């Protein structure tokens, strides 16, 4: 492979790539981590085998080849994770969802060979009408996908696919015709704000690093993505790793760095594999290494794996980890942009921030600023998950309302349940109730309401979520992840956890809520944002769901029937038919009964695992959750015959 030296070389590869797809059918199968529990790896294998059997492909590798009539492309995340596995058949863009192994031969014979659509595999709207095209499906229609757009168009393991959709043309343009100051001006004018949660203007950070008086500088991608429930960065790295690389190289050129680092959490093995492959390929093609595009600019990239520590995702901690030491935050009276990695000026940005850079260079500042709202330009990718119908990755202009994201794009609540809260911003964020659904999601508005947009995790909760339990969940997470360096965080979070645990175990007392609020004040003195924002989940749940705290403390009642110590499982004798399903599946043999005799749970030995509640046939719904436990009807050790 001859290295790319000029814009013409790049253009030749782009043309060649697009020509080899012309006139062919392409099956783009989502093969991201999110689809792995659906068995998509096996489905892909069967697709490859069947295509080979039908002489439609020359080989079963999934890579494009000129002789193949049909290309099987393993892509990154398509976004509509709830309906996976998803395959889009081009050129007609027919979208099949929920594909099973046994559907594969039919897809090939009917759609690929026969040109016919299989309606049962297509999306159906609320009226039952079939929607064949992905772009017409409401989930996709409501979005504006610029970062995720190419996830459905490329094989992320094929650099030429990325070049084929215009990849690396921004880098070519920058190196051919823009000075570092020119690029910096564009990023500043675009007012690109950091997508990792902080929302700090990237241009300002780049400028500080660029102007720092040191010859050696570094640029770093933060792909630690530690917020539980967030997988946006994972999907960009898996689906379009070159977009991040291109942004990073441009940043390196602008700032004057010759080396970049990607810090990727080790819990993302597929994302790691994809970015490592992308770096290898970029080196082979001359897009990394010496004299890129024949210019004087040389740049190399190294990947550093995380080892399972949330706090190491904080920028100064991350740099310490790259240095080979334990990733604990440092005091930031000297910014890392001035003294970061090995005390050299270092610019750190999130995956999604870098992925925006080539788009701004190619499409212009005006284009970027036409999306979003004032001071909140561009789009944001969210992981919309939890009790929502359409779980998945959603990309919308900044300023889109919570209501639109959750109800229009997200399809509303799962299983007909009632909306209770939306949690955003991960452990640094908060829970917002129904009357806040019309707030625009951007860097500023959610913060005013007591939450924050954060990195993009958006967890939807229904009536079955206990908000005290949610607060405890986040505080427990933070107590395990706190590095322990500073007293407010180490002791403050630990005390909050003790109090919240007592409350959820029925041992809460008057004054506990006030004590939580006092500790929340103290946490503001923490060394890093893990500590300073740790109180947000507690503060927001106290603010908006105070009655739940009061119920736990004063009545020993968990309104959502979540807190085990306050909830009992009870078989309703008026509904039980004695079918023995729960009895057979109880893991601790706590249920007694016989066929056609009402079953009884022994409350002394019941571990409240919830199995009986789950397995009781829906037509009976004979298992109730009762809180407080004092409301349990009198216990009978032997059930009566079913009436």
């Amino acid at each position, binding site marked *: 492979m001859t290295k790319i030296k000029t814009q013409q070389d790049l253009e030749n590869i782009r043309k060649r790539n697009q020509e080899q797809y012309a006139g062919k059918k392409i099956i783009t199968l989502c093969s991201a981590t999110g689809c792995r529990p659906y068995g998509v790896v096996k489905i892909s294998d069967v697709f490859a085998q069947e295509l080979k059997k039908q002489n439609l492909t020359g080989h079963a590798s999934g890579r494009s080849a000129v002789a193949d009539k049909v290309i099987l492309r393993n892509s990154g995340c398509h976004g509509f994770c709830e309906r996976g596995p998803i395959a889009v058949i081009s050129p007609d863009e027919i979208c099949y969802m929920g594909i099973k192994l046994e559907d594969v031969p039919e897809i090939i014979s009917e759609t690929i060979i026969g040109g016919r659509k299989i309606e049962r595999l297509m999306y159906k709207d609320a009226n039952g009408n079939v929607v064949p095209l992905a772009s017409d499906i409401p989930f996709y229609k409501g979005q504006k996908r610029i970062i995720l757009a190419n996830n459905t168009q490329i094989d992320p393991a094929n650099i030429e696919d990325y070049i084929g959709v215009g990849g690396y043309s921004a880098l070519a343009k920058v190196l051919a015709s823009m000075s570092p100051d020119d690029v910096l001006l564009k990023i500043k004018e675009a007012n690109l704000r950091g997508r990792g949660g902080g929302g700090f203007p990237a241009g300002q950070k780049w400028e500080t690093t660029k102007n720092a008086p040191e010859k050696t500088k570094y640029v770093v991608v933060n792909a630690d993505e530690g917020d539980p429930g967030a997988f946006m960065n994972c999907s960009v790295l898996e689906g379009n790793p070159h977009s991040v690389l291109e942004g990073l190289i441009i940043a390196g050129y602008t700032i004057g760095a010759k080396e970049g680092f990607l810090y990727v959490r*080790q819990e993302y093995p597929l994302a790691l594999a994809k970015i490592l492959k992308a770096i290898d390929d970029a080196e082979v093609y001359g897009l990394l290494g010496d004299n890129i595009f024949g210019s004087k600019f040389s740049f190399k990239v190294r990947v550093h794996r995380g080892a399972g520590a949330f706090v190491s995702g904080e920028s100064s901690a991350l740099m310490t980890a790259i240095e080979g030491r334990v990733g604990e935050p440092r005091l930031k009276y000297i910014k890392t942009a001035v003294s970061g990695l090995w005390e050299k000026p270092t610019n750190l940005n999130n995956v999604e921030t870098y992925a925006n850079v080539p788009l701004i260079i190619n499409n212009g500042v005006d284009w970027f600023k036409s999306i979003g709202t004032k001071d909140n330009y561009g789009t944001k990718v969210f992981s919309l998950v*939890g009790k929502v119908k359409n779980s998945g990755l959603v990309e919308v202009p900044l300023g889109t309302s919570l209501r639109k994201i959750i109800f229009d794009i997200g399809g509303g609540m799962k299983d007909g349940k009632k909306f209770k809260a939306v949690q955003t911003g991960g452990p640094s964020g908060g829970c917002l109730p129904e009357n806040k659904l019309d707030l625009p999601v951007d860097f500023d508005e959610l913060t005013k309401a007591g939450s924050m947009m954060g990195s993009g995790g958006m967890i939807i909760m229904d009536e079955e979520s206990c908000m005290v339990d949610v607060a405890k969940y986040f505080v427990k997470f933070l107590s395990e992840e706190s590095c322990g360096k500073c007293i407010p965080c180490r002791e403050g979070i630990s005390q909050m956890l003790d109090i919240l645990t007592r409350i959820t175990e029925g041992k809460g007392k008057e004054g506990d809520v006030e004590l939580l609020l006092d500790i929340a004040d103290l946490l503001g003195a923490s060394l890093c944002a893990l500590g300073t924002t740790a109180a947000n989940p507690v503060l927001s749940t106290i603010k908006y769901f105070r009655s739940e705290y009061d119920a736990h403390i004063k009545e020993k009642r968990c309104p959502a029937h979540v807190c085990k110590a306050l909830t009992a499982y009870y078989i309703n004798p008026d509904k039980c038919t004695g079918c023995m399903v729960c009895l057979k599946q109880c893991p601790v043999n706590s249920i007694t009964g016989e066929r056609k005799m009402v079953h009884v749970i022994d409350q002394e030995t019941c571990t409240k695992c919830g199995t009986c509640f789950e397995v009781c046939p829906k037509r009976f719904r004979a298992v109730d959750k009762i809180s407080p436990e004092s409301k349990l009807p009198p216990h009978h050790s032997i059930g009566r015959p079913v009436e």
Partner: protein
Amino acid sequence: MVDTNTSEIDKIVDKYHGDKGALIQVLLDIQQKERWLSKDSLCRVSDKLCVPLTWVYHAATFYKAFSLEPRGRHTATVCLGTACHVRGAPILLDRVSQKLNVGPNQTTKDQKFTLTTVNCLGCCALGPVLVIDESYYSNPSGAELDKIVNSYS
């Protein structure tokens, strides 16, 4: 107790050309190969990388990926991310824990499974999720869990 294979440790350290900055990467590779970080391997890494043993021990005890006790042949991981939590991850963890008869971060007596938890795997739409080695399972029921666990040797 599993013996530490010193030559394997050396090979891993040599791969990073003695770069002190690669300490965590070295430990990750050893953890993957040996399924734990023994005292001998920590001392060996300290010698070869010329990094104080306290630093090595600090890293080994700081990060969740590392285990100072031998892990089982298979790692069963339950995701406790927020999305999985609201979809019932604690119940799944209880179920897996009962089935394997161990708690989180414990290994079964026959060394077959180590049960761990993680705070997000990136498959939130399918939560709650159980991963065993590289296989992902979405919300397995009690009966499905029996089948899954019995399929591993």
